């Protein structure tokens, strides 16, 4: 039971983060192409489904108590790519499944993944620096 509760506690922020990122990307995409209007409900449900699948994959394959190894990192990219590709082509976020659209999708995925990775990397590097600086100060009395 406690494992399930722990899983639920970990699930919520991660799922919300994926969902928020999905909504942001869709809004950003509309902004780039100068489209006005609002995101349709069906699209929000699709993003929600993608967020749930990405979170389940993340928590299922990459336990929280283990830092990411290089192999985990590659696996994480692949898992996210496969799920997002299935969603993008399945729900028609990207037009017909041609070679050209696959290249466009891969490019978009790479840009956003790299941006998210860089953001998290910088945030955790800063946080690690702060924590360890305070730890050193504590140990020095």
């Amino acid at each position, binding site marked *: 039971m406690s494992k399930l509760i722990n899983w639920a*506690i*970990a699930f919520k*922020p*991660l799922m919300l983060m994926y969902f928020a990122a999905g909504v942001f990307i869709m809004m950003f995409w509309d902004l780039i192409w100068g489209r006005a209007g609002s995101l349709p409900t069906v699209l929000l449900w699709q993003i929600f489904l993608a967020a749930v699948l990405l979170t389940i994959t993340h928590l299922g394959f990459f336990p*929280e*108590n283990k*830092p990411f190894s290089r192999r985990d990192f590659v696996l994480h990219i692949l898992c996210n790519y496969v799920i997002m590709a299935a969603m993008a082509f399945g729900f028609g976020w990207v037009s017909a499944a041609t070679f050209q659209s696959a290249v466009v999708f891969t490019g978009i995925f790479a840009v956003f993944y790299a941006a998210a990775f860089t953001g*998290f990397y910088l945030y*955790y590097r800063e*946080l*690690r620096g*702060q*924590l*360890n600086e*305070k*730890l050193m*100060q*504590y*140990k020095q009395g």
Partner: protein
Amino acid sequence: MKITIEQDVACAEPEVKITCREMDEGLLRIVAALRALDHKLSGISEGRTFVFEPDEIYYFESVDKRTFLYTADRVCETPLRLYELEGKLCHGDFFRASKSVIVNLSRIRMLNPMLGGKIEVVLENGERLMVSRQYVPMLKEKLGL
């Protein structure tokens, strides 16, 4: 158990003397509690009792309702429960890292924040432990963050 208290104005330092046929778990717990008051902790390993300064201890872990203390080169069982140790030590260098672990902050080499909000602790001996999300605010407070 017979308890005798003798008051003597000439006594410079209180002395606790236990007279028994043999040490049992209850007496060991009393000794451990007295040691903790004296800022020393005792642990049993391979039938021998060892006394440690709190600074020597890296962390305490509760496994199957038994509590173990870990030093640089020894693992000992202590008769004190984790909540008792928390009460005695957590106002000092120790902090609760999870439901089953208490860690000595002065024996931590590095702290690594993890994606899910937990913090990985790397001890001076290279051992790695995890601070649960629930206890991260207490660690940060102790560090003044």
